[in-house]
């Protein structure tokens, strides 16, 4: 019976073992041909996936990198310019340099917002003994996160509005009328207003990821630390943070990936203005491609963003691995 089973499994492409038998039984050279023939049906099943990914993802990614070395204005033939696009970015394009500063501000803040605040809120929820409250709080954390981004951005645009906005009304209400301003219309203030929109800056998804880490900590470890007389803060610093570091790191990397290429919120709230003071690289890429039709230059900005994300991700993973050891 066992023999019959393994034969069936092998004959009809079962789980590994059958395959190895087949591989051993045929010679090396004819083996390759057999293996190719054997693999074909599987590729037939994978074909829709692979084809779609090729057309809409790999090919565009290749095009982006390829075109970043060309000067290519739509309608004109592309000419090879080497790394000129990248040089121009850092030497002549003041808007791009401004956008780097802005994305730097946003990234630093989002990195903080994605790691430290979720840790604090997760610790607060973790400290609650009642299971029912805990359950509802977890749902309450997620609920704001499923409001469509566009709605949140438009509402914050409204909150910041100079004449009818909530923020100015609140400031007037508590007697700080001199502080009121057109928050998104003042070039010096706009980038800060944009960065700090989304008060109280609690990222529900990240909070739940961190909370999951806390809940997975062995209860005995926490109990023994309590018996040894560790205070709550000592426990958090010495035990909780090292033990949920994997979750914090995940949140950090997700924050880096999202914030370096951020541009939808900027597009909806300020369109990069006033006078390009809130420009970010992602939006500058879009303007170059679709408003100025400088496709080659836009591709170069895209490659720059891609490489930056890659480097920052690798660096942060390396740093934090060593710090932990």
């Amino acid at each position, binding site marked *: 019976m066992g023999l019959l*089973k393994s034969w*069936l499994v092998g004959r009809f*492409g*079962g*789980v590994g073992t059958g*395959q190895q038998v087949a591989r051993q039984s045929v010679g090396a050279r004819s083996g390759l041909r057999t293996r190719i023939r054997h*693999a074909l049906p599987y590729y037939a*099943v994978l074909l*829709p*996936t*692979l084809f*779609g*990914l090729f057309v*809409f993802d790999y*090919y*565009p*990614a290749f095009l*982006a990198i390829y*075109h970043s070395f060309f000067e290519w204005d739509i309608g004109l033939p592309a000419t090879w310019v080497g790394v000129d696009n990248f040089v121009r970015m850092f030497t002549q394009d003041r808007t791009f340099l401004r956008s780097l500063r802005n994305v730097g501000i946003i990234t630093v803040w989002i990195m903080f917002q994605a790691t430290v605040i979720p840790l604090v*809120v997760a610790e*607060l929820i973790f400290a*609650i*003994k*009642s299971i029912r409250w805990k359950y509802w*709080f*977890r749902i*309450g954390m997620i609920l*704001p996160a*499923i409001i*469509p981004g*566009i*709605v*949140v951005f438009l*509402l*914050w645009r409204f909150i910041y509005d100079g004449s*009818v906005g909530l923020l100015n009304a609140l400031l007037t*209400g508590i007697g700080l009328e001199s502080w009121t301003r057109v928050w998104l219309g003042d070039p010096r203030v706009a980038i800060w207003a944009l960065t700090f929109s989304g008060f*109280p800056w609690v990222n529900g998804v990240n909070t739940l*990821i961190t909370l*999951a*880490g806390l*809940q997975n900590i062995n209860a005995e470890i926490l109990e023994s630390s309590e018996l040894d007389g560790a205070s709550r803060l000592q426990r958090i610093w010495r035990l909780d943070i090292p033990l*949920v570091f994997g*979750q914090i790191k*995940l949140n950090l*990397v997700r924050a880096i*990936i999202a914030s370096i290429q951020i*541009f*939808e919120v900027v597009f*909806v709230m300020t369109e990069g203005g006033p006078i390009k003071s809130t420009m970010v690289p*992602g939006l500058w*890429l*879009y303007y170059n491609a679709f408003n100025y039709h400088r*496709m080659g230059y836009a*591709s170069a900005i*895209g*490659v720059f*963003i*891609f490489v930056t*994300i890659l480097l920052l991700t690798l660096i942060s993973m390396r740093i934090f691995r060593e710090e932990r050891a």
Partner: protein
Amino acid sequence: MRTAQTAGYAPDGGSRWHRLGRHMRRHWPIPVILTLIVLMMVPMLLALFIAGKSRAQFDFDPWGLTFPIYYHQTFPAAWRVVSQSILNSVIVSAVSCIGVLFFGSLSAYVFARFDFLGKDTVFVIILSLLMIPAILTLVPRFVVVHKLGLFQTMWALLLPYIAAGQVMAVFLMRTFFTSIPSEYFESARIDGASEFRCFWNIALPLSKHIAGVVAILQVLGTWNDIFWPYLTIGTKKELFTIPVALLIFNDQLGQQIGTQMAGYIIASLPLVLLFAFTSRLFVEGLTAGGLKL
């Protein structure tokens, strides 16, 4: 009866104030978190508040309570403006979700259960897409879609969404399929089931949970996507998805702020409804503890 109750409330005596103090020391995170959640909901509460105001009421007294409340006018007016785009968004999200689940799970099944030439290489190549930011491929993908003649059609949304969504789907579902004991499939094969039936009748029903997570991720991603539909649908109003409609109509509705806010709420409701039925799945998916680096 009475003594038992008192004993239950105050096991070791103490005055009412002492009890309250003890209670606060034990439970102080509850009001803190409650406050936070209310603050997180402020923009939505604001929308709900303003949606009840007519234009005159808003001009006259934007932040006070004003009567009558005009929900019966603002919501129908907003619905007339956004109903078509809600329908479009539902179609796009639903169809792309089904596409991702079907092709993604099929591919994940092949990767999980079989061994063939080049499998690991192809799998790594697919996963490498997780490293490529969407912004890099935005412009060339638009060029591709344009060249394929999909510009200003629903396919310009559906096909790239289905393609891109599969990366995560293949990754998550492959992990799950690998964890199903192979004896299940072997015995089915002995009983004469075809490989497709093994997939359809054994693997898929077992993977409801993870398929739900994939589906939610896909729906959230497509429903909230602002820029891709903004680019590819362009000016074709009858194909607007909800974010595009809100963005474009926002300026037209600017005069009617109550209607505008009602539109925001209508746009959020489908996801809130979906969440009401799947919150458990969603929260458990996030808190199962497997997510870390």
